[in-house]
């Protein structure tokens, strides 16, 4: 829990992951050999990297089942779209409010649940919350456009007009790198350790005078912020925001990304998002195959590789080992 890692391991950790700084640098070259469609898929991967990283904070690090992730994603997307459509805000100004709206939703969903039996009520309230929001999108026609949704106007980011996939790619990459690095730092701070400690044993954590309720709410808010920002990018990337994008079909994709990548691993969430983003496109023609595939994928991983792909990678590359995970 709060035991100190051996000095050797810590040094190894820092050295082993410094390689990651090369990833975004190499990614800068992607537009050179990508056609517009593959570039779109790569952009979508960037959006889902934020989605998975944000979801992992609650699902993996806090160890709390939550269903609100699509709701937070939707709030971010709708907030950005509504600010741009109704208030005429530029895109860059709408990103932070989208994140704040997501954080506020995370706050609301978790604060009510703390009054009941925590484990279950957090999950149940987030489930109800997500469906409630989707109902609001459909019935709040004036603001949300109802089932037709909202068309997002052309976006620009500090003077750069985002009218091509390539332009969007560079802006998205910048935002994603900054946020992933921020989350990475946060996870290695006191806050991150407290969140993981609550996962491992809430009672023991509370007995160390760590206010567990406050950290649970904080984790939900942080998760909401990251996923809300992802929502604003999603809105600009697709050019429209409709209620169906944020339903239960989307939710299984989010679950799969975090679990396949590896619960609790930041690297894993990035990996899971990159690996799974392109898949749903293949199932478009066959009703039901999408749910069967992702349901089956989750079952297989839970039975065979519950620590996800990141644990497999860590075998080959010990620097990736999850320092905060202890085998039970």
């Amino acid at each position: 829990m709060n035991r100190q890692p051996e000095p050797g391991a810590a040094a190894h950790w820092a050295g082993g992951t410094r390689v990651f700084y090369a990833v975004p640098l190499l990614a800068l070259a992607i537009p050179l050999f990508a056609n517009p469609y593959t570039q779109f898929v790569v952009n979508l991967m960037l959006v889902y990297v934020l989605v998975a990283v944000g979801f992992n904070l609650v699902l993996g690090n806090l160890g709390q089942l939550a269903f609100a992730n699509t709701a937070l994603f939707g709030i971010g997307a709708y907030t950005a779209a509504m600010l741009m459509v109704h208030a005429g805000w530029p895109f860059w100004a709408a990103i932070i409010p989208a994140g704040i709206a997501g954080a506020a939703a995370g706050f609301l969903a978790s604060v009510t649940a703390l009054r009941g039996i925590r484990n279950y009520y957090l999950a149940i309230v987030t489930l109800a919350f997500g469906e409630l929001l989707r109902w609001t999108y459909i019935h709040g026609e004036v603001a949300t456009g109802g089932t037709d949704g909202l068309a997002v106007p052309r976006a620009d980011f500090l003077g750069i007009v985002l009218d091509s996939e390539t332009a969007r790619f560079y802006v998205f990459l910048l935002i994603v790198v900054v946020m992933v690095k921020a989350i990475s730092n946060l996870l290695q701070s006191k806050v991150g350790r407290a969140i993981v400690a609550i996962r491992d044993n809430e009672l023991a954590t509370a007995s160390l005078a760590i206010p567990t309720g406050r950290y649970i709410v904080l984790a939900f808010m942080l998760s909401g912020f990251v996923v809300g920002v992802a929502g604003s990018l999603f809105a600009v990337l697709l050019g429209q925001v409709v209620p169906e994008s944020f339903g239960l079909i989307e939710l299984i994709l989010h679950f799969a990304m975090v679990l396949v990548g590896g619960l609790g691993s930041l690297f894993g969430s990035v990996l899971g998002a990159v690996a799974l983003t392109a898949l749903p496109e293949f199932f478009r023609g066959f009703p039901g195959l999408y749910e069967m595939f992702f349901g089956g994928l989750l079952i297989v991983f839970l039975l065979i590789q519950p620590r996800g792909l990141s644990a497999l990678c860590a075998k080959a590359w010990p620097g990736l080992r999850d320092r905060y995970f202890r085998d039970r």
Partner: protein
Amino acid sequence: MFFLQLALSGLAQGAIYALVALSMCVVYRATTVVNFGHGDLVMAGAFVTYLLVVLAGLPFPVSAVLAVALLFVLGLAIEVGLIERIKAGPHIGFALMCIAVGYLLRGIARGVWGREVLPMPRVFDFPPVILGDLVVTADALVIFFVVGVLLMLFFGLFYRTSAGRIMQAVCQSERGAALVGINVRTFHGVMWGVGAALGAVGGVLIAPLTLLHPGLGASFLIKGFAAMTLGGFGSLGGAVAGGLLLGLAEQWIGGYVSTKLIDIAAYLVIILVLALRPQGLFGRTVAERV
């Protein structure tokens, strides 16, 4: 009169919610796993009945019994084949497993069913009973009868027989029950089967009343949770009472305020209960000390 007519249809709906909530509660009490895929088992019950009636041409009562039996086996298989294997892992694993199974079932249903919303042929064709100004539909009568009999059977078994006492013992302490020679592992499997079968009865009863679609499970899951929350999480009698009250609340809100609100009554119930009385109507407060 309008009030009573709404109450009647509310109780009929509520009886089905009660059954679903009870079936979720049985699994939770017996195994401490909250089955987040339970709604899809309810859907599967309705779906199998539909297939047997429409495609295989079997009479409704036979199909219903077959569907419930099949779901018992499915529930047992899920516990023994999937949940039991990851028992040693963290709790979040069971929850994710339940979700995954739910999605898998929904996908299979969608694959067979296609994208259409299908009406089940009418089953009970006898005329409604008229009491003064009240019209009691045949469907409501069948629901009251079936749910009433099942509830009496279940609670009779649970509180009055030695098999029921074994169940209560395992619910109280797994380790203690294992020490006095109860086979806890088999018990868990059987209780999953019972939960799935009870849920399937709910699905079979709802099948002739509404349009069927693979997404049915999600709304049942939330309604079951709302009923459990209202009655007190984990209380068997509370789940039944909560289901009936939820059915009534939905109809009255729909009748007097707006029909749009019927869909979200369950969510509002969950949030209101947590804000005002987190232990539910019949739940006991669990003191949590640090």
